[in-house]
């Protein structure tokens, strides 16, 4: 997280630290699911995905319940039973992060408390969270000033209207065939140095739903061009609610 602050304990109790192919983030859903980005499990350009999901589940580490990486490691990881990658995610298509969403099912439900609590999913009908300027918070253990953070940081970012994202992207991308799909949104600033960065992928972009008084995950840190050099791009959770609920519900 660039330009952010250190999170206090209990600020983002849903935050998960994942280490699958390096560091990533995630968010607790319910008491046994981690919502994260597909590309932290199967990175782009990894070539033929010779390792099966079962093996990845076997190797994955998920930590919950603290803001310090060191403490998290001391507390021990939560083993993963199964991994669900969204079928639209295509690791071969390097510049297309469509469908960049995944679910990790923990082997054992976690016991909730002040430092471990799940994030809500947005209400299907509520699209105000994606309107231009709607403030959200993103937390993560990702890179800050070229170093992986040892502590959980967070930053407050506004969602940006699609056309702004699109025109900015058109000006930046040159001949990179990066895809900005309907299932994404962008947030952040053009000039202010506040953004998410590598290592934050999989963490969720949350907003406070003032109606319900609950924090909901509207996005998942997905990709960007550099860090704090413009907008960041997030998976639009609203478009994947059926997929998520289909998996999480089926398992209850």
């Amino acid at each position: 997280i660039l330009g952010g602050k250190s999170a206090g304990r209990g600020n983002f109790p849903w935050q998960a630290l994942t280490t699958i192919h390096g560091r990533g983030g995630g968010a607790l859903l319910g008491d046994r699911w981690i919502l994260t980005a597909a590309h932290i499990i199967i990175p782009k350009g990894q070539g033929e995905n010779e390792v099966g999901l079962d093996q990845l589940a076997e190797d994955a580490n998920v930590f919950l319940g603290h803001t310090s990486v060191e403490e998290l490691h001391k507390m021990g990881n939560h083993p993963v039973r199964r991994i669900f990658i969204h079928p639209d995610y295509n690791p071969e298509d390097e510049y297309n992060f469509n469908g960049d969403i995944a679910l990790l099912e923990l082997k054992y439900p976690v016991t909730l408390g002040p430092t471990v609590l799940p994030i809500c999913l947005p209400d299907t009908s509520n699209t105000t969270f994606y309107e231009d300027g709607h403030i959200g918070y993103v937390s993560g253990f990702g890179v800050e000033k070229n170093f992986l953070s040892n502590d959980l940081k967070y930053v407050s970012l506004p969602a940006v209207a699609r056309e702004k994202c699109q025109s900015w992207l058109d000006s930046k991308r040159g001949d990179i065939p990066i895809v900005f799909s309907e299932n994404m949104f962008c947030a952040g600033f053009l000039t202010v140095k506040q953004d998410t960065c590598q290592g934050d992928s999989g963490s969720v972009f949350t907003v406070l739903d003032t109606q319900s008084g609950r924090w909901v995950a509207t996005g998942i840190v997905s990709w960007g061009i550099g860090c704090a050099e413009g907008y960041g791009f997030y998976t639009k959770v609203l478009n994947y609610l059926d997929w998520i609920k289909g998996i999480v519900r089926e398992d209850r």
Partner: protein
Amino acid sequence: SSPVPSRLFGEIRSPGYPKPYPNNNISTWDIRVPKGYVVKLTFRYFDLEPSESCFYDYVKIKADKKNLGRYCGQLGSTTGNHPGRKEFVSKGNRMHLAFHSDFSNDDNGTVIPYRGFLAYYQAVDLDECDPNNAAEEDERPQCQHFCHNYVGGYFCSCRTGYQLQSDHHSCKVECSSELYTEASGYLSSPEYPQPYPEDLQCNYSIRLPKGLSIVLSFLEPFEIDDHQQVYCPYDQLKIQARGRTIGEFCGKKSPDSIETNSNEVDILFLTDESGFSRGWKIHYTSEKIKCPQPVPRDQFTIIRDLQPVYEFQDYFIASCKTGYKLMEGNQTLLSFTAVCQADGTWHQSMPHCEIVNCGNPADLTNGAFSYTNKPADNTYQSVITYRCNEPYYHIVTGAGGDRFTCSPEGTWMDGNGQVKIPACLPVCGKPVNPVISVQR
């Protein structure tokens, strides 16, 4: 003389019947029927020359060494002695007929063709028991007690307490093994109410099916030799049940009714060589053995349809008030029935009722329960409330809510009778320490 074969019936005809009989003829017949029968003879047809006192032609009948008559003549004739439809019955099992015709049958020079007679006889059972039938020479003595006639014979029997002797007629006191198996009956000293014989060793056994209790009632007169000072030194009436002596009686005061509580009773009557007491008579009846009134062991036990009296083969069902269960020792019973046994005891002892214990309520993951009632225990009607570890979890209950009661069935049930406990579902999006930026 032609002996008639010993049959049960037959015909006897005059010589040449139905043609006129010959002159100068003497024919005799000996009729014999089996022992136990007598002969009964009648004339179907009778037509002999009539004469004063049947001097010329006649039939003579004899039985039991007696003359039964001399007959001749024609139906309606003024002279002679026509037998008509008369029945001739012997006392013994034999009868003798003799026919006699003289040298002629003419009347003033006219020969009359008298045709003689046709007689029919049959064996008729002799009722040896009818005193009027006792044939003098009958060598057989009369039955001493009871006579039982049957066709062709008779037999004797004796009063209870007596045994028919080898002569098949006389009865001697034999009461050493009298057996009574009817549900009720009478027994008495031999000759009652006449004085009982001496030197008796009578044993009357009453044997009824298990489960019946014999009750003895003494009838009047009750009279057994006794002594002023010494208790029953001469004659004794002993009553035993299952080998246990219930009482020994004598004297003139009949004992009260005795409920033996046993289906087997022996009555011994021992007499010495003298005495003129009239003896005793007992009317025994039987009733089902009674069992003690069932008494609950605690205030939670219910005896269904409690009866005032319980007898053999009766039963009672015990159950518990709602919320209590039947226990036999440490064993839980699904039901309890006790049957009154033949020995007047219940086939199993009364159970007790223990309050239903639902056991520890199911733990609620990420929650807990608390007892609403005091003392906090898991017995019937205890109430607990489930709570989740708020604010991290919120409770999801069935329609029956979060209060569970220990039910009579021994399970914790919610307000709708459901046993499924609530669930604690994660509360999402509610950090207890949300990030709040104060500075603006």
